[in-house]
């Protein structure tokens, strides 16, 4: 593989492999989603079938057609996803058995296979092209734009699509200060959740004395239900690297780290490949593009500790210690990794940088609202029809995201709340569905922008149990260094568990509110300071559910085990014995063709009988 020695070589595609990739840009191909989600659905078998079939057909009919495995396309609900390019014909839920038909009908015959097209549930219409599918149509994909198009294991494909052009521009025509000014002017704010202006962060680090500085990409995506950062690294790792190199130039760093979750093996693999290729191409290492800039990137694997997403804990972990946070100031820009000035940004922030440089700060700043610029990626999960990754301009109403893009709530159930920001965030109830998605508006409602996790709750979700879930998570993940977080989360969790068990007492809500405030204002790091948010926000909007648990001893959503009873609906029970046989604790009695009964004293409320009953004869009250 050839080293690219100057920006001019990169821009003119004078390097052999890149030139070939540019020539191949419009070559017809089938792209198959190779993201973690689609792999779980079995997309690997699908692409192998395509490769098999096309190689064979190719020999017979000199078929000039490529099979490309890309990163995550985002529409995880309908995987495995297949797109025929350049037309953009979109096939959903493709199985191995469908491959021969796609090859003969579409690839050779030029006709679409109707039954594999996506059906818009609203209009009942079949939709032929990817860009017309409502899930994609209402998005504005800047960071994810190449995810469905690019083989992430090939650096040349990224270069052919304009990759590393921003780096070349920065190295040949901009002084470091100008880069920082550009990022400042773009209005980019930290996408990890806190929303600190990125340009200002860079400036603070640059202005620190000393020759040794570090940059870090925070890819420790620990928020349960969020996987956008993983998908960026899986699908387009070079864009993250390009952002980091530009940042290193602006800040004056020569060593960078990507701190990434060990639970993301595919992202780690792609990132490793990308770093090796960038080094071979002279885009990382010594004298990058002949400019004199030296910068290397190393990968550090996280070992499964949520607190390591906090920047000071993350740095401790890179240094090989346990991931305990420390007080700030000094901020990482002043005293960071190994005591040196350090700049930490989230994956999405780094990936936004090449886009801003390429298209200009003015262009970028026109997207979004007055104080929140650009786009944000959410992973929209839970009780939603279109589970997937959604990139939208800041400021769009939440309703549009959930209903136009997300396709609304499954099984005709009612929307209850969107939980944004995970264990640090809060929920937005139905009455605020028209809130614009920007940092200030979400904060005003008691939620946060967070890193992009968005979990949708419907009428069957118990908000007290939901709050208990998050509190159990943060309590477990609390590192234990400071007392308010270590004991406060424990006390709050114990109270919530009591309420869910039907042992709530008057005064519990007030206690949670008071303790929540204490934990928020006295904890050492972001984990503790935000841990009470899910509880405080559910009390704010769903106090009636808490009261029902405490005073009426009922769980309105019929989730909390201590407050529900399973019983047999005599009219529906056929006496088929299936529930009886499946009950692990022998709580069900009855004989063939006689109505069964459940002994509430023995029943553990595991839900097995309800899940196996074909006659809707198990009732939860």
């Amino acid at each position, binding site marked *: 593989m050839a080293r690219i020695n100057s920006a001019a070589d990169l821009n003119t595609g004078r390097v052999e492999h890149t030139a070939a990739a540019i020539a191949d840009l419009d070559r017809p191909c089938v792209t198959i989603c190779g993201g*973690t*989600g689609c792999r*779980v*659905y079995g997309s690997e078998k699908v692409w192998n079938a395509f490769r098999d079939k096309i190689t064979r057909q190719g020999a017979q009919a000199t078929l000039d057609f490529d099979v490309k495995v890309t990163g995550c396309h985002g529409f*995880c*609900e309908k*995987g495995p996803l297949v797109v025929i390019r350049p037309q953009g014909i979109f096939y959903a839920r493709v199985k191995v058995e469908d491959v021969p038909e796609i090859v003969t009908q579409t690839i050779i015959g030029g006709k679409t296979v109707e039954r594999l097209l996506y059906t818009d549930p609203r209009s009942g219409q079949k939709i032929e092209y990817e860009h017309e599918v409502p899930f994609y149509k209402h998005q504005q994909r800047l960071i994810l734009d190449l995810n469905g198009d690019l083989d992430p294991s090939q650096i040349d494909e990224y270069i052919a699509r304009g990759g590393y052009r921003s780096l070349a521009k920065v190295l040949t025509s901009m002084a470091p200060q100008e880069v920082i000014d550009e990022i400042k002017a773009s209005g980019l704010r930290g996408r990890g959740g806190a929303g600190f202006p990125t340009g200002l962060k860079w400036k603070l680090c640059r202005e620190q004395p000393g020759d040794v500085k570090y940059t870090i990409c925070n890819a420790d*995506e*620990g*928020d*349960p*239900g*969020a*996987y956008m950062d*993983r998908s960026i690294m899986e699908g387009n790792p070079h864009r993250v690297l390009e952002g980091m190199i530009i940042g290193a130039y602006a800040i004056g760093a020569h060593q960078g780290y990507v701190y990434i979750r*060990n*639970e*993301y093996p595919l992202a780690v693999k792609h990132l490793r490949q990308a770093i090796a290729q960038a080094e071979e191409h002279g885009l990382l290492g010594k004298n990058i593009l002949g400019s004199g800039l030296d910068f290397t990137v190393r990968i*550090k*694997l996280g*070992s*499964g*500790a*949520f607190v390591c997403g906090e920047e000071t804990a993350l740095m401790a*972990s*890179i*240094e*090989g*210690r*346990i*991931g305990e946070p420390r007080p700030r100031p000094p901020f990482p820009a002043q005293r960071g990794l*190994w005591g040196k000035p350090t700049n930490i940004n989230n994956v999405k922030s780094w990936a936004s940088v090449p886009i801003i440089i390429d298209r200009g700060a003015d262009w970028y700043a026109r997207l979004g609202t007055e104080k929140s610029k650009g786009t944000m990626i959410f*992973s929209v*999960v*839970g*009780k939603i029809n279109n*589970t*997937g990754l959604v990139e939208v301009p800041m400021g769009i109403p939440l309703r549009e995201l959930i209903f136009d893009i997300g396709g609304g709530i499954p099984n005709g159930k009612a929307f209850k709340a969107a*939980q944004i920001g*995970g264990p640090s965030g809060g929920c937005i109830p139905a009455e605020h569905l028209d809130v614009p998605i920007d940092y200030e508006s979400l904060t005003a409602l008691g939620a946060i922008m967070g890193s992009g*996790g968005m*979990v949708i*709750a419907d009428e069957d*979700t118990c908000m007290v149990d*939901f709050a208990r*879930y*998050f509190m159990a*998570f943060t309590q477990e993940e609390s*590192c234990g260094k400071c007392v308010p977080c270590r004991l406060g989360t424990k006390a709050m969790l114990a109270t919530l568990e009591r309420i869910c068990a039907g042992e709530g007492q008057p005064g519990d809500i007030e206690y949670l509110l008071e303790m929540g405030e204490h934990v928020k204002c006295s904890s050492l790091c972001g984990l503790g300071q935000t841990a009470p948010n899910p509880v405080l926000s559910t009390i704010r909007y769903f106090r009636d559910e808490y009261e029902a648990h405490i005073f009426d001893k009922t769980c309105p959503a019929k989730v909390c085990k201590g407050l529900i009873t399973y019983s047999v609906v005599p009219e529906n029970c056929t006496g088929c014995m299936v529930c009886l046989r*499946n009950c*692990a*604790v022998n709580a069900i009695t009855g004989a063939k063709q006689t109505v069964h009964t459940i002994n509430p004293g023995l029943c*553990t409320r*595991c*839900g*097995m009988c309800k*899940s*196996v009953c074909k006659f809707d004869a198990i009732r939860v009250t």
Partner: protein
Amino acid sequence: MHLTIDVINDIINRQARDDGSLVAALEDIQARYRYLPPEALILVSERLGVPLSQTYSVATFYNAFSLKPKGKHCLNVCMGTACHVRGSPQVLDRLQTQLGIGAGSTTRDRLFTLETVNCLGACALGPIVVTDGEYSGQMTPQKADQLLKSITRAEAKHG
């Protein structure tokens, strides 16, 4: 699995030049043996010149490390938020009842280890259970039973 000093020495040598090599060395040992044997912790401490207390502190801090040996089959229930609202607690309950162990434990016959994970990021398929690296999506208590049955049946056949 048989523990050999050579393997662990190898791992440490590979990591020794790296900064922060303690975590990395433990990660490699965990990957090799699926737990951290006490002898390995002692060896790592001696070789890296780190007090055993510090090695122990790191080994017990991060979720990825285990001090107990794992069973032959590893069942991992995703407890991410999306899986939670879709019913993963019932799936976990069922597995706990059927195996007679709590999450994080191994059955006495060392056949099963039951674990939970915070999020696997395959939320469209939730609730998810990963069995020895193989994903099963849209789980219910009933499917959990079938999963256990298929493993025990295969075990009875092939041992």
